[in-house]
């Protein structure tokens, strides 16, 4: 994953799910496995960060609303 074109959450999530699907369906060969796990790890971190950020932002908005 090049740093200059960070994928969107949705792209990352979709890619992650593809990898997961492939993993679960045994469609990944041993040759690819490490690379795929590496990629999945990166995607998980990326998505997690994005999710936490979004969560934080939403919380801030709610706090600002003062409800």
């Amino acid at each position, binding site marked *: 994953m090049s740093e200059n074109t960070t994928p969107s959450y949705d792209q990352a999530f979709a890619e*992650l799910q593809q990898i997961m699907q492939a*993993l*679960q369906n045994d469609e990944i060969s*041993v040759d690819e496995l490490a690379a795929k796990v590496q990629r999945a790890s990166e995607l*998980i971190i990326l998505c*997690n960060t994005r*999710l936490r950020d*979004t969560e934080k932002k*939403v919380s801030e908005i*709610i706090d600002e609303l003062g409800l």
Partner: protein
Amino acid sequence: MKFSTIDKFVAIFVAMEVESKKNVYRLSQITKSIHRALEVATGGKHYWVKAEISQWKTSQKGHAYLELVEMQGGQKMAAIQAVIWSMEMQVLQSKLKGDFGQIFNQGSEIVCMVGVEYHPVFGLKLRIIDVDISFTLGELEKRRRACIERLRSEGLLSLNRQLPVPRILQRIALITAPGSAAYTDFTKHLEANEFGYSIRVTTFSVRVQGVQSAAEIRQALLSINYDQFDAIAIIRGGGSTLDLDGFNDYELCKAAALCPLPILSGIGHETDLSVLDMVVGLPHKTPTAVADYIIDQMQSFEIDLLGMLNAILRQSKNRLSRDLLILENSLSVIKRSPASFVHRQRGDLHNISGKLARLTVEKLQRSRQVLKDLSGDIALNSKQKLAQRESQKIHELQELLIIYTQHRMQGISQQLENLQQTIKLLRPEKLLARGFSISRIQGKAIRDVRDLQSGDEIETELFNGNFRSVITQIHKKNNNDE
């Protein structure tokens, strides 16, 4: 009964005319006479009369002067002056209250109780003592129904109701009589709402009672700049049933129906519903109810907004937590599945290794067995060839050798035997024994008679001896053979 009295009165009048020929009376005599005659006919009597009020005037002393008419097909059939004396007016007003103005209106039809009064100066008048309010109400009801029917048939009845009502009615065009209790109630109620909502009311001043109210309200409705308001409110304080009649006015209701803004009404009566109430989009009983409605709408809108916000937040949180969960699951799958994946692959490899060993051993065993079978076959075949085939052949040859040899020798032996037998038969001894004899001359066997001469001595041999003899005669055969 009532009409028979009038008949009598007329009869007297006619009799007077016939009898007083050429007698000149003073006017007062006549009027007195009329007065007396009327007194006789109608004095102290009251009649219920149905008539239309064609003129209505009130004096400063509190009397009302009216003209009652009976119309039929646009033709005036009867007309008479009538009066409500101030004393009776007060009684009626206190009894009818607001309805009084509705009943005693120019143009309205009434059923009223009258006495016949004659005054020498002021002439003949019907003195109205009482009025039948139920007739008026009935008439009103009829008119109301006709109005509703007309609005319905023109498709106006539900027009205003069909207008979309904005969720928030914040800019209100208020049509009412300012300064009335209803007005104060309404505005105060709106201003003092506990939620702090800001509602801007623009008042359009009209009379809400009396004959002019319908027209004024209609005028106000038409004069409003609709763009500046969310809704129009028409309110007034409580009143009698007859008071409502202005709101049953066809033209007013039509204007309300055609109004592009939704109309709130707070003109209602506890029991009756005005036609206007039926036409407007948002009818309410009272001005307070209208104000409550406006505030409630705002509150419910705000509650809905908050509900929506909560739902949005909930959904957002759900969305986020769902994805978080999926990510966590993915993570655990990622953590777990390569291990199980590798484990499975390793199992496969292990199985393949085992299978490799097994298949190889099987292959070797199979090869060995095939080789063994072939070896056995070769051994068996090579042994069989000798033992059975060749040995048999030689044995047969050997037997044949004996048979052929013996056969050969037997044949030869037989041949010799046959020869021997033949030879035996040819032996001379055998011939002699059967009676043949050999004659010899000079030791030689005689074979030809020509070799003989008479007198020759011949020796004849028999099987058991011989004898000598001399030839005496020679007889020669005619030999055919030679």
